[in-house]
C-alpha cells in the first residue's frame, strides 16, 4: 500500500513530477560525467600504458617519455645492459624525430618514430605491412591525407629542412608499406614510423646510436618495481618509469581536473538533492491533513516516512536513469572536444564509462533521494494529529 500511495502521490501532480525528474536527470548527467571524468582519464591512461604489455619505460634522466626532444646516447649499450637482467624479457628502443616530405610545391612535416617492428608497442597496423625493411616507412591516415600518398608509393623523406634555402638534410627515399594507427598519437597529428636504424641514420652522426625511449616488458612473475630500481642503479643516466610511477605523475598533473570534477559533481548532487527536497516538501505540505488522517487511522509514523521517502527515491532513481543516458551522450560529445586537445594522445578518454561510475552516481542519488524525503516526512508524521487536523480544517 505504501508503494501504491507513493505512486499515486507522484501521479497526482504528473507534470510537476516529470519536471522534477528532468531536473534530477540533468543533475545526474552532470554528476555521472564528473564521476567519469575524475577517474576516467587516469584509468584510460593506465589502459593505454599497459595495452601492449610494457610495464617500464626509460627516458632521458629527469624527463618523461617524449616530454622533451632529449635523447639517450649509446642506445645499444643500454639495450645490452638491460638484457643482462633475467627479469627483463623484451626491450624496445624508440627514437622520436621530425621528417619533411616534399609534395609538389609544398613540404609536409610529420612526426616520425624509429622502432624495431618486431617488438614495437607504439602503433597498430591497419593495412599493408610493417616497415621491416631499412627503406620502408608506414604512416597514419592524417599523413596519407596530407601527402596524398598510398601504400606502395615511394617518398623522398628528410629529417632536416631549411625553409629559406629550401634545402634538405638526412634525405632518404622510402617506400610506403602500410597504414597504421599510433596508440599515443594526438588528434590530427601527422605521424610515420620506420626502422630505428633508418631514423638514426637519417639523423646524421649525432643520432647514430640515440633513442628517445625504451619500453621494457618484465617477466610476469617478476617485480616491476624491483626491475625499475635495478635499471636506475645500473643505468644512472636514465629515468625508469613504471606504470605506477607514470600514473602517479599523471595523478599529479590531473589534480586540477579531478578537483574540478569533485566540485562540479558535488554541486550537481546538491542541486539534485535540493530539487527533490523542495518537491517532496511542497508535496508533504499540501498533504499535511491527509497525513494527519492516516496517522489517526493508525498508520505508523515509520510507514508514513517510508511512503514519502519512496517518493523521493523514485524521483531520484527515475532522474538517475534518465541522467545516465543523458550523461553518456554529453560525455561522448565532450570527449570528442577534449580528445583533440593538442599534445594529448587521442586514445585517452576523458570520460571513460565504467560500471563503477554509474553505480557510484546512482548510489549517491539514491542516498540524496532518501535524505530528501526523510526530513519533510518525519516532520509531517510527527505533527500532533488533533492540532493538525483542526488547523487543516480551518485552512
Amino acid at each position, binding site marked *: *500500500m505504501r508503494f*501504491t*500511495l507513493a505512486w*499515486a*502521490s507522484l*501521479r*497526482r501532480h504528473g507534470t510537476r513530477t516529470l519536471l522534477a525528474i528532468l531536473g534530477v536527470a540533468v543533475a545526474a548527467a552532470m554528476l555521472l560525467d564528473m564521476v567519469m571524468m575524475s577517474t576516467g582519464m587516469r584509468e584510460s591512461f593506465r589502459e593505454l600504458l599497459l595495452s601492449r604489455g610494457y610495464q617500464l619505460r626509460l627516458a632521458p634522466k629527469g624527463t618523461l617519455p617524449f616530454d622533451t626532444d632529449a635523447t639517450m646516447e649509446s642506445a645499444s649499450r643500454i639495450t645490452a645492459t638491460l638484457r643482462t637482467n633475467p627479469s627483463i624479457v623484451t626491450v624496445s628502443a624508440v627514437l622520436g624525430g621530425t621528417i619533411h616530405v616534399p609534395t609538389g610545391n609544398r613540404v609536409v612535416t610529420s612526426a616520425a618514430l624509429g622502432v624495431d617492428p618486431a617488438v614495437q608497442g607504439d602503433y597498430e597496423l591497419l593495412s599493408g605491412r610493417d616497415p621491416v625493411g631499412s627503406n620502408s616507412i608506414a604512416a597514419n591516415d592524417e599523413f596519407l591525407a596530407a601527402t596524398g600518398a598510398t601504400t606502395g608509393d615511394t617518398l623522398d623523406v628528410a629529417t632536416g629542412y631549411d625553409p629559406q634555402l629550401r634545402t634538405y638534410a638526412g634525405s632518404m627515399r622510402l617506400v610506403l608499406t602500410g597504414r597504421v594507427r599510433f596508440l599515443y598519437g594526438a588528434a590530427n597529428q601527422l605521424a610515420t614510423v620506420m626502422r630505428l636504424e633508418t631514423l638514426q641514420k637519417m639523423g646524421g652522426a649525432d643520432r647514430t646510436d640515440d633513442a628517445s625511449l625504451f619500453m621494457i616488458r618484465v617477466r610476469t612473475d617478476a617485480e616491476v618495481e624491483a626491475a625499475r630500481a635495478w635499471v636506475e642503479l645500473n643505468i644512472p643516466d636514465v629515468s625508469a618509469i613504471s606504470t605506477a610511477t607514470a600514473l602517479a605523475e599523471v595523478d599529479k598533473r590531473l589534480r586540477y581536473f579531478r578537483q574540478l570534477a569533485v566540485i562540479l559533481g558535488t554541486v550537481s548532487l546538491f542541486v539534485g538533492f535540493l530539487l527533490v527536497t523542495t518537491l517532496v516538501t511542497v508535496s508533504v505540505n499540501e498533504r499535511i*491533513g*491527509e497525513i494527519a*488522517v*492516516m*496517522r*489517526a*487511522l*493508525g*498508520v*505508523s*509514523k515509520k*510507514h508514513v516516512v517510508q511512503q514519502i521517502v519512496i517518493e523521493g527515491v523514485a524521483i531520484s532513481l527515475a532522474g538517475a536513469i534518465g541522467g545516465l543516458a543523458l550523461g553518456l551522450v554529453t560525455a561522448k560529445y565532450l570527449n570528442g572536444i577534449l580528445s583533440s586537445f593538442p599534445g594529448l594522445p587521442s586514445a585517452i578518454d576523458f570520460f571513460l564509462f565504467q560500471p563503477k561510475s554509474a553505480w557510484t552516481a546512482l548510489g549517491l542519488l539514491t542516498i540524496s533521494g532518501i535524505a530528501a524525503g526523510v526530513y519533510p516526512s518525519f516532520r509531517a508524521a510527527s505533527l*500532533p*494529529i*488533533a492540532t493538525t*487536523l*483542526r488547523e487543516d*480544517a480551518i485552512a
Partner: protein
Amino acid sequence: MTLAREKAVFSWAGYDDEAPPPVVEARDLARDYPFGAERVHALRGVTFAITEGEYIAIAGPSGCGKSTLLNLIGVIDHPTRGEVCIRGQNVGGMRDREATAFRLRNIGFVFQRFYLMPTLSARENVELPMAEAGIARVERAARARELLSYVGLEARERHRPAQLSGGEQQRVAIARALANRPAILLADEPTGELDAKTGAEIIGLFGRLNADGTTVIVVTHDEDLASSAHRKIHMRDGVIVPG
C-alpha cells in the same frame, strides 16, 4: 455530595451498577492548551462512561470541548489531567507507537471533511487501515467490498473520491472506519458538510451500524443526528452539563 445525588450524577454520566463494563470510561478528564502566555481550558474535568453497543451523541455549542473530548477518546491527543480508559486500558498516557497501534485496532474515525485519500479508489481507501494492520491483499479486498456493499456503494468501488458525491464520500469514510472492526466508531460532525437529505441517509447508516452492534460516538451540532442517538452528553465550557 450526598449518596443519592452522587448516584444520580454517575447514572446520568453513564455509570450503572448493573450495566456491563464500560467500553469507554473517562475520569476527571481535563485538557489545557497553551494560548500565548495563557492557557485555554478546553476540558475541565469530565467523567462519564459508555457501555458496549451504545450510541452516544456529544452535543453543545462551538468551543465547548466536544471535539477535544472526541480526540482524547480517539487517542489522538493526551489529557492534561485525568484518565480515559477504552476496554479497561488507560490510553491517556500511551506513547506514540503504542497509541498508533491501539487506534488501528480499536478506533474508527469519521471526519466532517471525509478526508479520503484523493489518489486512491473507494476500495483502496477502505483497504488502507487493513493494509496497515497486515491483512493479506485478497482478504482485505474482500472485506472492503463487503463494507462498501454494507454502505450501499458496491458499484462505486473503483471510483476516486472526486468522482463521488459528498454523501458517498462520507459512506466510504464510514466503511474505512469499520475496516479493522474497531471497538468504537467516533464521528466528528459527520453530517456537517452534507445537505439535509444526504445527512439523513448518514444518520440512518449510523443507526443501522449501532443496531448491528457497533458502539457509536458522534460529536454534532445536528439536532436530527443527536436525536437519533440513545443518549446525549451535553457539554458547555469544558464540562458535562445536564441536558
